[in-house]
């Protein structure tokens, strides 16, 4: 909560430090004093900063994030419009990431220094280092250009065209999923390795449990804790940080909205978007904490 309040203050301060008069900018050539004053009063920009802040914060808490300077729509509706696309991409990506990371990380932990391990290490190192927008461009070139198998971008809601939805989702989800998956692979490897070396694994073997059972309940079960944390971190990143991939794939998500808001100096939208991301970040942290408590009895009180 303290963090959230802090975030709000910074969001607000940051946005109001932007030089230039946003209303003047929004009106552009259609400028006339009367509209200007009206707009200014409506967005509350004529009031002292502190009052503006509390006004904005109070309304934000009740779900009213103001009105876009550019389009006149409410920020809440703009965000609501973009949210499904962002959520779709983020969850599809994390799915791809886990599908890559869990088997790969586990395999390389089981056979450290083997060929599998070395290949996995090299692949994850590459995945971490590759610029995702570059990978996106290359994939578009190959799959949309040369091969012509998939569309190069865009988004259709699942309800309208499930096939098109899946086709358009595939490439961006793979791009962000590979990057996140590479990060998670390293965590899975090290946490499984650590779990394998634990004393209780020897106890489990010594009581004659089948190997599979030892592995599932005494290794993987214990390696789950760090995995939950990284997955949370990655999900938070995917929900907010994939602006560049959204741009390349013309994916109408929140990142794109935020970038457009920056370019147009559309304060209320930018404020709303950043605030939402911060809330999402904290929310994911909360969920991770809850999951932790569910998984690790030592944390329960």
């Amino acid at each position, binding site marked *: 909560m303290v963090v959230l309040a802090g975030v709000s203050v910074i969001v607000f301060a940051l946005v109001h430090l932007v030089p230039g008069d946003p209303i003047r900018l929004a009106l552009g050539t259609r400028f006339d004093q009367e509209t200007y004053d009206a707009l200014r009063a409506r967005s509350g920009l004529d009031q002292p900063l502190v009052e503006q802040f509390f006004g904005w914060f109070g309304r934000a808490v009740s779900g009213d994030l103001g009105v876009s300077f550019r389009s006149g729509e409410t920020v809440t509706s703009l965000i609501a419009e973009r949210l499904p696309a962002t959520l779709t991409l983020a969850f599809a990506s994390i799915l791809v990431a886990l599908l890559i990371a869990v088997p790969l990380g586990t395999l390389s932990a089981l056979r450290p220094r083997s060929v599998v391990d070395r290949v996995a290490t090299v692949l994850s190192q590459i995945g971490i280092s590759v610029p995702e927008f570059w990978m996106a461009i290359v994939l578009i070139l190959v799959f949309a250009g040369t091969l012509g198998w998939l569309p190069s971008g865009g988004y259709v809601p699942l309800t309208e065209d499930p096939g098109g939805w899946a086709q358009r989702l595939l490439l961006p989800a793979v791009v962000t999923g590979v990057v996140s998956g590479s990060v998670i692979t390293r965590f899975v490897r090290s946490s499984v390795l650590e779990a394998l070396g634990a004393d209780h694994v020897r106890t489990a073997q*010594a009581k004659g449990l089948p190997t599979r059972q030892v592995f599932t309940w005494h290794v993987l079960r214990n390696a789950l804790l760090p995995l939950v944390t990284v997955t949370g971190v990655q999900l938070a990143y995917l929900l907010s940080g994939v602006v560049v991939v959204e741009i390349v794939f013309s994916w109408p998500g929140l990142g794109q909205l935020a970038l457009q808001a920056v370019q147009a100096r559309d304060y209320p939208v930018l404020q709303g978007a950043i605030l939402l991301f911060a809330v999402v970040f904290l929310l994911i942290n909360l969920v991770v904490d809850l999951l932790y408590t569910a998984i690790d009895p030592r944390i329960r009180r």
Partner: protein
Amino acid sequence: MTASATGEPLLEVEDLRVRLRTPRGPASVVNGLSYTVGRGETVAVVGESGSGKSVSVLALLGLLPARVATVTGSARLDGEDLLGMSPERLRQVRGPGVGMVFQDPMTSLNPVLTIGRQLVEGIRAHGEVSKAEARRRAAGLLTEVGLPDPERALDRYPHELSGGMRQRVVIAIALSNSPSLLIADEATTALDVTVQAQILDLVEKLRADHGTGVIWITHDLGVVAGIADRVLVMYGGRCVEDGTVDDVLERPAHPYTRGLLGALPDLATADEGDLATIPGTPPAPTDPPDGCVFWPRCPVRSDPRCETEQPPLQVVGTGLSEGLPHRAATWCAEGGAR
């Protein structure tokens, strides 16, 4: 399983050798260890850390990582060679054949599973037992090891129990399939004296009731004297002396044993009950000395062969007790009474 009358030993280890791949090169951690454990007999294995005690028992059950460990020799449990077993047969032996208790009760239980679960899975791994029946048996085991309120303990997690209670749980797990051999690796080292005494009593009772053979690894002479029938002294991966408790403790033949027992005043300083500390460090298993393993630290060194030839394990005395030999591997044996 009736007492030692059958003549055939429960466990017969012959020329056990363990080599480990380490970052500093191959290490011979156990070098030709041979011993037997009879039914209902307790053998104490003593020695400094790094003497190969733990590795030698882990090797018996195939609990050393195959990637780094090479085990040779033979170890017959009830006539069946443990070292040549199929993985599945070995799994079946772990539990009903051999139960094992590890040193650190704080880490040898899985922190995220309940006590009950960890007991029940062990019981159910060796036979068709319903969950309810396994749980009933688990509660029975906890009662047997003296855990108060066993029903409630089943639903608790390891961190909710004290160290002594946890070790009782570990022992209960080791006993859950009524093993014919119980191996306890420094099982009471981490516990305080009263708890230790209770656990020793418990094991003693089990041995008397079920005829279980016991290998007790320790560095505590009080435990050795209190619980063991025979003692095996390990140094540098070898048995340097073995015999009945009375023979070894009363008339130690090997200079190392004498050092451990504080029988060599210039060599060692004994603390109450514990093995004494001997100046110097045990030989590095990657680079064992020529000759007797102990000579670099040995204050006696009275024989020219000390530095060139490893002495064999030889009978040094008739022994105080009925025909059981007292043997030592040294050129400088001090047999007979002090």
